[in-house]
């Protein structure tokens, strides 16, 4: 698992450079922007299905988070942390829930070992995955993408120093570095976890962005811009970054899949968000003790995680192909 990211980087960097340095096709100067309808229309069915799943799972997580606050509880969603068999002091009765219930109309995926609604916990678990992968992608694209574009363009000592630093961070086995960093923090809130993973995402993005920036910087239009005396900062902003961005963004999808696995692993070890907040990893870890009597409680969060990761990989691969075609057509 640790190494998929490096293999990915190698693949992405290799692919984009190879394609980008191929013979340029004659275009009308500016690459056409495809409309949303065109983009979706081009997708193979499996990619459409994957995209639909992602919308469902992350849309569901956002809705569940905002349900009571914004929509006033319009949908009958359950409270993910409510133990449904608990004593209710207001009514003076016990709840009618049971631990480890099979699926029913009320609890779509049954209940867990302390009678909480599994469907609600999975829905809210998606929020953790969403935030962590979104923060990591934001860090990666903005910081890593910028540093990579910059050093690939200016080269020289700046590049040597920054890349040496990046290489040192990448020289650590990723999970061990993450564990060491996580162990520094006593309070492991969602924000802390997202920031640590986000920080550790920067090096990989920098490598990807630099590889493409190197290739783009050698192209005729950059040479032309230099020749007419454009300021380097303007070239970086107008020529380099717009051409690096598509590949970095499509890498972000694949990286998000990796980040979700990493967060899942941390949660599984009990080193991510603290209970009772649900995440797919900690649900799997809690339910595995009762796997002999209730398989579903393990299968449901596992499937949520695996399908999400698979979908991100599918959509990411597809965008990567599009991005490299676009680069080749420049």
């Amino acid at each position, binding site marked *: *698992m*640790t*190494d*998929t990211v*490096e*293999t990915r980087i190698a693949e992405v960097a290799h692919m984009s450079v190879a394609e980008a340095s191929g013979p340029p096709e004659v275009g009308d100067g500016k690459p056409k922007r495809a409309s949303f309808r065109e983009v979706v229309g081009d997708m193979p069915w499996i990619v459409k299905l994957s995209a639909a799943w992602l919308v469902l799972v992350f849309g569901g997580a956002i809705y569940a988070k905002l349900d009571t606050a914004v929509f006033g509880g319009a949908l009958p969603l359950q409270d993910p942390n409510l133990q449904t068999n608990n004593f209710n002091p207001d009514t003076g009765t016990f709840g009618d829930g049971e631990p480890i219930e099979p699926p029913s109309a009320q609890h779509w995926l049954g209940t867990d070992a302390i009678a909480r609604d599994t469907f609600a916990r999975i829905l809210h678990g998606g929020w953790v995955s969403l935030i962590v992968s979104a923060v990591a992608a934001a860090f990666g694209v903005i910081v890593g993408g910028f540093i990579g574009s910059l050093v690939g363009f200016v080269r020289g000592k700046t590049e040597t120093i920054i890349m*040496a630093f990046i*290489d*040192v*961070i990448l*020289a*650590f*086995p990723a*999970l*061990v*570095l993450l*564990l*060491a*960093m*996580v*162990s*520094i923090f*006593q309070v492991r809130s969602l924000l802390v976890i997202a920031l640590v993973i986000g920080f550790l995402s920067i090096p990989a993005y920098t490598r990807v962005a630099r590889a493409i920036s190197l290739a783009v910087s050698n192209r005729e239009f950059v040479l032309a811009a230099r020749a007419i005396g454009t300021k380097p900062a303007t070239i970086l902003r107008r020529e380099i970054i717009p051409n690096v961005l598509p590949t970095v963004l499509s890498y972000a999808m694949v990286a998000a*899949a990796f980040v979700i*696995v990493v967060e*899942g*692993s941390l949660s*599984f*070890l*009990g*080193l991510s968000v603290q209970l009772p907040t649900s995440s797919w*990893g900690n649900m*799997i870890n809690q339910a*595995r003790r009762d*796997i*002999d009597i209730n*398989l579903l409680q*393990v299968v449901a969060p*596992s499937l949520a*995680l*695996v399908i999400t*990761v*698979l979908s991100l*990989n*599918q959509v990411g691969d597809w965008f990567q192909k599009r991005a490299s075609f676009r680069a080749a057509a420049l």
Partner: protein
Amino acid sequence: MWKVIGIRLGRLALTLLAVTFLSFIMTALLPGDPVNAILGVDGPRDPELEAEIRAELGLDDPIPVRYVNWLADAARGDLGESYINRGQEVSATIGQRLPVTAQLAFMAIVIAVVLAIPIGVIGAYRQGRWQDQATSAGVQVALSVPNFITGIFLIWLFAVTLKWLPASNWNRIGDKGLWENFKTSILPATALALTQMAIFSRLVRSDMIATLQENYILSAKAKGLSDRYILFRHALRPSSLSLATIVGINFGALLGGTVIIETLFAIPGLGFRLINAINQRDILVIQGITVFVAVAYVVINTVVDLFYTVLDPRIRRS
């Protein structure tokens, strides 16, 4: 060639320096006073004893001095003592647990290679047809399943349902013999192997597709050699060089990548100890294991790189 090797070794030294410094600084900056961890926070405290411990650990020196001292000790194999289990040498712990983790990583790699070669070869040989599509889809799924999920379902199938193998624990080869050891190691190794298998078979497939377009493959076909002979005798060999590289690198990565599987199966390896240390905030153990794994990874990478340089004449010359 000697120049290339010299540059590599120089870079190795620099990377090691940086990696050890980073490991050191991370744990040196941990909040919480190590003295509290040793003496406990409650109750009256002997200031003389406290000062003595501080001096012994060198806590009052500036960070660069502490780093140099620590590095000098570490180079001699002295990584300090556990704060929680007094008297337990960190390096002794590592020495005790490394064989377990290394065995697990080795078994995982062997299983992965054995599965990956036929899968990759089929994919390349039947490129674009249903055999390729089926194996590629399987590989995609294998890449997306985290190893702890694989592990849980292996436990469910083979330990809980079929009751063929124990669900957790570890029998040392020295204590119980090979077979008993195998019974406890095969499930975790398989769980680790799945992702590796996916990575390796993708590599074999793409390498092989390129190799199969070479002229010498065409001439072998013209000679009337069987497809199987060409695939495994003529085409696999040039493709196996890059496979060997990634196998070496991933073995190094697995030394730090077995953490979750070791925790799941309660295996007394490096990773399980690391998690314990993190939960107990046993700083020197965290530091020791982190630095050991990182150094092993960096060194293995360089060695693999050098082998590659020595073996492949095309790289040697450039």
